[in-house]
């Protein structure tokens, strides 16, 4: 169990009821990686993320994050949920949401100047400082998602875990979002669930395919202008058409 690994899963199976959602999953993600979890709906993507966050416990096998159990390293993980899963009518400002990232490190009765400074610098990284006093509900989908990234950054994490950051936002905002993630990837490991099965951003370094079983794919460059036109940006294609070994395979 090395500290160099951001995430390590050993023979992990998980079932909500009787049937396994994930079966004998072995997975290693090194630190500094930018990994995207893809797969069909109900294939177990979100379950995998919940296991990594420690919000679910595996039925069998071991989950290690940064060499320890997920619960122990919780404060070193920055988590970003999908904005549509939140109550958008909740009367709350952008700043108040981002400050939640500071909870857990202090008593949290009152936020200190240091907390506010950290929140502002997180908002700066996602280009939303001007919106700090805006209401959450007044933002666009893409902006909401960026606020939730800022909140995750405010935790000062070693790993950023994102749940479908690009769902419900348009292509233009998606590009801006990936630009931000690319910058962040210089200092932290990024792990995200993606709703697109076939295509992922060009910044993604490895792809984890989840459909009950888990297989790691490399990403290979696609130059097709057609795809570029459809998606409005550069993307990489994942090869799904062949069978991989358990350990995954590498670009040759």
């Amino acid at each position, binding site marked *: 169990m090395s500290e160099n690994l951001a995430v390590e899963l050993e023979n992990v199976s998980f079932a909500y009821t009787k049937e396994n959602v994930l079966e004998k999953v072995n997975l290693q993600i090194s630190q500094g990686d930018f990994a995207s979890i893809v797969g069909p709906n109900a294939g177990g993507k979100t379950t995998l993320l919940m296991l990594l966050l420690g919000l679910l416990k595996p039925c069998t096998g071991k989950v290690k994050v940064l060499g320890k159990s997920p619960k122990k390293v919780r*404060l070193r993980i920055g988590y970003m949920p999908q904005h549509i899963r939140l109550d958008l009518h909740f009367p709350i400002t952008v700043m108040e949401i981002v400050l939640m990232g500071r909870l857990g490190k202090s008593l949290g009765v009152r936020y200190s100047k240091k907390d506010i400074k950290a929140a502002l610098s997180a908002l700066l990284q996602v280009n939303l400082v001007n919106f700090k006093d805006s209401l959450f509900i007044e933002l666009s989908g893409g902006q909401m998602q960026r606020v939730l990234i800022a909140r995750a950054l405010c935790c000062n994490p070693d790993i950023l875990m994102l749940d479908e950051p690009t769902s419900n936002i348009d292509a233009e905002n998606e590009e801006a979002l990936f630009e931000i993630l690319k910058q962040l990837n210089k200092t932290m490991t990024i792990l995200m669930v993606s709703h697109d099965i076939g295509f992922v951003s060009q910044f993604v370094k490895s792809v984890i395919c989840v459909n009950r079983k888990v297989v790691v794919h490399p990403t290979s460059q696609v130059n097709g202008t057609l795809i570029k036109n459809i998606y409005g940006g550069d993307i990489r294609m994942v090869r799904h058409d062949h069978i991989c070994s358990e350990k995954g395979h590498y670009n040759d």
Partner: protein
Amino acid sequence: MIEFVQAIFNPDNQFLRLAAIIGILASLSFGIVGTYVVTRRISYLAGAISHCVFGGIGASLYLQQKTGILWIKPMYGAVISALIAAIVIGFVSLHVKEREDTVIGALWAIGMAAGILFIDRTAGYFDMASYLFGDILLISYSDITLVACLDILVVFISLFFYNKLIAVCFDHEFARLRGINVDFYFIVLLCMTALTVVLLIRIVGIVMVIALLTIPSAIAGQFSKRLWQMMLFSTLFCMVFSCFGLAFSYKYRFSTGPSIIIIAGFSYLAVLIGSNLLKKFKK
């Protein structure tokens, strides 16, 4: 209204004065806790808690008579049963994944039924309606002390844990990942709801108290931009509704509790219709 203010200061109307004081004092807790209940969407749980209180009231009346201990008053039974109900219902909500609502519905009914069975076994005449629908004639000076103490407790807890409660209500998953004991704060929230519900049972009764907890906050939520604003406005609304309801019932000789609820309920509907029309008009 002037007539009502004069009536309040009339030395003969002590009951009216007490009711007004309790209504105003309790509004503070109602505004704050009601806001948490509405935003966390647990008014159904709050309803179950308030109905379970009837079991406690029945039990304390029964015990008072059987043991002859006079200090076992219905209000103490109400406080204790409300807290027990809050903890039990909280655990059900957290751990029963299947048919959670049915289980809570069952607890709701068991609480009520237990209260009535206890009262059946208690000799003498007891007016159930006064607890179910409120009766301001039952209020005494000792109630004011109780209401004031619970008020201070509820306000202190909800303001002290404001940041954590806001995180738990807005996004409990994230709060849990920040190392906050989400389940604990959820139970704390339900216990505060329990204490708050007890505050006004004398005036509006078990059946309707839940409406006074949620309606002011729901109205405030229509235009509040921050959670503390919502708390402030709902406190004000709650005060206004209780005072107007009291005045209305005094003037036209209606029951107080239902008068308060009717005023609050119609105000809520009016605000909802008004804001919808406004949205259409803007388009």
